[in-house]
């Protein structure tokens, strides 16, 4: 048999089901948000790393111009520091989509599909290995090439050989950037099929795993040794790169997402705490009189405190029972969505027990701690006060300058409005300033986060726009090898619609550190630097852009200065070009996400020091009109023209495609941000509903007075609904202000994680107005239910209250 006081706890918990439901829901929304973030973070960071390990990721890649054979692979495998090596043929081709558009397609050819030892590719569906004269497409690329399994597609090799080939199935290749992000689809064929296209046997891409793959510096040295070996064997190396150990290709974006999740998790935790304090305050207001009675019959403070803490603990247990499974489900769904986005299979969705423990601690201990504040202030008042009869509502309106401001002559304009209850609502809002503050904190945090989420979204778009603005052109062609610049430009300018052309050359380079060690591959782009140059300037973080006549000036990504601490703006950088070391001066840093580091130098200077004067291996073209249809049409004509005159195209892309691809890479972040914004809006709304419920409860007798003097139901309800709207509007205004530093912080954190520099700040007015609409709707909804309850009470009931 339980003690009598515990019966009260049990009966209170289950006797008022609506109240219990509201409290438990309030708590579980916050816990759910926390659970989903904590669990998804763990699943993504651990699960993806675990999944990635199963493909035997390479430590680095060395690409050759000349083809090599199995003997060279074997010789690399025998190197002391190489744990494993494998090779493939990689060819950039063009393919025609159903709509007639030509797209880039990268084809990989393996000698033995059953024995891929590094960066494993596996079968998703269809035949394995790819049947003769058929192709497998990477599963994430199907939507990009606008085709289905079984379709015939037309492929054109750089040698101009064209073949129609059937898509035999789908492959899974997580080591590549997902096609929807970088816009490059991947295909897989056998060497027999390659021969059918008129190409000879041989590999041009070597993937190696260092014997200590977890050590990036070591891995880099090993990759460099392999590169040196290849060079010594007579191969030309246009590209070699080292991968981040154990990290998938889009790790920066994933880290950004995880960081954002962490920040939003902390925010939702704060919101949950405020919500708990608000909810517990509501509960105590309801129970104030009963607490007085218990004191009157001899209940000690600790005894009563114990009862209510057990009650709050029980609410926490119930909230956890909802939040943990739903949070787990949500986390798995969210992780799956992100895994699809990153083109990864999650072999493990396990969440370590610590995650549950944190959730349980937050759900059980924090509410108890948070509720101590309202408990202690409530228990401090005397039993007589707790049981005191009607004193025209609670609150201390009339004491300070705010109250004086809201009273009398200052609000003269309200008197002229047809809704006189506005005046009552305005003053009621400020009656209990403590509760108003608590509600405003909860709602303002929710508002600020919601608006910030939209700001981050707008900032991501601005950042993409900034990156695109570098290129004052409409279409770009990377050529398969160097051509004479004047020939390329004159051929391009002969096409109607082309208004201007410009050329650059690109070179593989490496940073040589003070200790003589070398970095991985860095792309060196050398654009022509003239006032009318088509490449204006990247979005600079610090310093300046290249100037005409610059000799050894270089502009580097700001992320490079973070990765290589010995570099600084204004300092020197030693770059190895074609085996020779050259000293450059860093004159500026630029913002931007690059999966390979890029540095910019002056075309005239580089062509001079590399004896390539007058050469070009990339051309940028501006067109008369800039819409996709027009630019695509001109690009197609240019492609045909270049093919006709023997200029082989390695890669063709338009600025519109680049913009779309860059925005797509942020899609997951934006989707996640929106999901979080909705959750936070829900938490804020529930907080407001709790406050309005207490307000109605506290003023039950006042409602009776209003009804007794003839106020119809509608008027009574409108007083509370208006009060809710006023609180909502105040939180909106404050949230709009708090969102400025908050979104700057998020931009800083996200930008640093993804690109090494803050995002380009942008304040989203659509987000601000959308939240205004939502907050008004939420306020109406949150106050309508308690207001309707209030308006339905009979005069006798409300005047008898207390």
């Amino acid at each position, binding site marked *: *048999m339980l*003690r*009598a*006081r515990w*019966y*009260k706890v049990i*009966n*209170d918990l289950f*006797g008022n089901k609506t109240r219990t439901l509201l409290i438990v829901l309030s708590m579980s929304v916050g816990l759910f948000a926390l659970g989903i973030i904590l669990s998804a973070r763990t699943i993504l960071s651990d699960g993806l790393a675990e999944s990635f390990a199963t493909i035997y990721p390479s430590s680095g890649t060395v690409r050759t111009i000349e083809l090599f054979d199995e003997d060279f692979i074997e010789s690399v495998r025998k190197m002391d520091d190489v744990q494993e090596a494998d090779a493939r043929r990689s060819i950039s081709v063009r393919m025609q989509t159903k709509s007639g558009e030509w797209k880039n397609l990268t084809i990989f050819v393996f000698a033995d599909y059953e024995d891929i030892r590094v960066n494993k590719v596996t079968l998703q569906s269809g035949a394995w290995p790819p049947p003769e004269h058929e192709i497998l497409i990477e599963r994430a690329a199907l939507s990009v090439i606008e085709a289905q399994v079984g379709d015939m597609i037309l492929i054109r090799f750089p040698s101009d050989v064209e073949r129609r080939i059937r898509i035999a199935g789908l492959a899974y290749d997580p080591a590549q950037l997902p096609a929807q992000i970088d816009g490059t689809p991947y295909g897989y064929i056998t060497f027999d099929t390659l021969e059918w296209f008129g190409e000879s046997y041989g590999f041009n891409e070597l993937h190696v795993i260092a014997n200590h793959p977890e050590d990036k510096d070591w891995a880099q040295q090993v990759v460099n040794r392999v590169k040196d070996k290849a060079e010594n064997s007579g191969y030309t190396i246009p590209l070699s790169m080292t991968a981040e150990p154990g990290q998938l290709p889009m790790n920066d974006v994933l880290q950004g997402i995880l960081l954002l999740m962490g920040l939003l998790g902390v925010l939702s935790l704060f919101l949950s705490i405020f919500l708990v304090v608000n909810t517990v305050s509501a509960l105590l207001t309801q129970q104030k*009189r*009963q607490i*007085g*009675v*218990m*004191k*009157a*019959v*001899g*209940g*000690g*403070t*600790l*005894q009563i405190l114990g009862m209510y803490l057990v009650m709050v603990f029980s609410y926490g247990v119930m909230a956890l029972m909802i939040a943990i499974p739903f949070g787990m489900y949500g986390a798995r769904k969210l992780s799956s969505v992100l895994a699809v986005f990153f083109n990864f299979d999650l072999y493990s969705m396990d969440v370590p027990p610590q995650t549950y423990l944190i959730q349980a601690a937050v759900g059980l201990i924090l509410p108890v701690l948070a509720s101590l504040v309202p408990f202690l202030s409530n*228990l*401090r008042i*005397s*039993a*007589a*006060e707790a*049981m005191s009869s009607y004193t025209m509502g609670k609150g201390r309106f*009339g*004491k300070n300058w705010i109250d004086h401001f809201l009273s009398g002559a200052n609000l003269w304009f309200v008197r002229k409005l047809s809704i006189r209850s506005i005046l009552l609502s305005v003053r009621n809002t400020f009656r209990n300033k403590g509760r108003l503050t608590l509600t405003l904190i909860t709602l303002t945090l929710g508002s600020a986060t919601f608006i910030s989420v939209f700001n981050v979204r707008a900032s991501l778009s601005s950042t993409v726009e900034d990156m695109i603005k570098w290129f004052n052109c409409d279409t770009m062609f990377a050529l398969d090898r160097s051509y004479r610049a004047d020939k390329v430009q004159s051929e391009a300018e002969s096409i109607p619609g082309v208004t201007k052309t410009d050329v650059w050359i690109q070179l593989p380079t490496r940073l040589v550190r003070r200790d003589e060690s070398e970095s991985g591959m860095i792309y060196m782009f050398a654009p022509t630097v003239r006032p009318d140059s088509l490449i204006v300037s990247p979005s600079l973080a610090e310093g300046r852009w290249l100037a005409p006549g610059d000799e050894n000036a270089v502009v580097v990504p700001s992320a490079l200065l973070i990765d290589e601490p010995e570099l600084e703006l204004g300092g020197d950088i030693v770059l190895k070009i074609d085996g020779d070391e050259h000293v450059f001066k860093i004159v500026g840093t630029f913002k931007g996400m690059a999966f390979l580091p890029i540095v910019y130098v002056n075309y005239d200077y580089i062509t001079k020091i590399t004896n390539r004067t007058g050469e070009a291996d990339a051309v940028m073209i501006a067109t008369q009109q800039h819409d996709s249809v027009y630019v695509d049409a001109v690009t197609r004509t240019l492609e045909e023209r270049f093919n006709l005159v023997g200029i082989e195209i390695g890669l063709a892309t338009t600025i519109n495609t680049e913009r779309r691809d860059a925005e797509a890479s942020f899609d997951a972040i934006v989707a996640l941000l929106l999901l979080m914004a909705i959750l936070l809006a829900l938490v804020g709304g529930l907080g407001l509903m709790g406050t309005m419920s207490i307000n109605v409860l506290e003023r039950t007798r006042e409602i009776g007075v209003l009804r007794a003097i003839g106020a119809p139901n509608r008027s009574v309800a409108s007083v509370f609904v208006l009060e809710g709207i006023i609180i909502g509007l105040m939180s909106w205004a404050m949230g709009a202000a708090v969102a400025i530093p908050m979104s700057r912080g998020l931009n800083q954190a996200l930008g640093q994680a993804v690109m090494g520099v803050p995002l380009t700040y942008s304040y989203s007015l659509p987000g601000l107005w959308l939240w205004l609409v939502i907050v008004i709707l939420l306020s109406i909804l949150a106050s309508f239910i308690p207001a309707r309850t209030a308006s339905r009470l009979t005069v006798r009931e409300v005047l008898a209250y207390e």
Partner: protein
Amino acid sequence: MNSSIAKPLIELRSVVKVYESLAGSVIALNGIDLQVFQGEFLVVTGKSGSGKTTLVNMLTGLDRSTSGEIWVNGEPLHRFGPEKAARLRGGTMGVIFQTFELLPTLTVLQNVMLPMDFARRYSRWEQRKRAYHLLEQVGIADHARKLPTALSGGQQQRLAIARAMANNPAILVADEPTGSLDSATAIAVIDIFTGLVQEGGTVFLVTHDKDIAKCGSRVITLSDGEIVM
């Protein structure tokens, strides 16, 4: 009863209570000196606003006086904080209110058991037995498993009395216990108090009803916070 030699159960010495409000200070009690003795049925009367309820709050420790001394059973209640006052109240006094103040989520039986639980006076089994016995005494044992809302006004007040007697207190303090009852029920409730006094108990009753006041062994009248007779 010989008040000159017996030690008072409750003693108030120059008790003052001032309430502060936006309208200014209000003196609710102005230097009250009062002694209540064992076996007395003391009735306090007075008009609305005369300070009767404030006096109850002071001597039960439900509220603190602004100045003066309150001694209950030899203990200096005026020096006690809320915690100690609650313990003293639980062991020494039973309080009854005009609006019954029953806990709506506890059954009739559990309402009576609650003060015993707080005071940790009896074992759980004894608490139950004693609660039944008290309910029988006030004539509502048949309703033991009901919630208070299922009872009539008179039955609710009987329940409040049973609850007040739960810890066998030295004194019952009742603030307008018949204020919410019809006259027949009010008489029945007063009969319970009379019976208690006859059995040696002490009752301190506040009422504005002159007929009920006649039932007391001693009557004092409050006016503007002062004892006038």
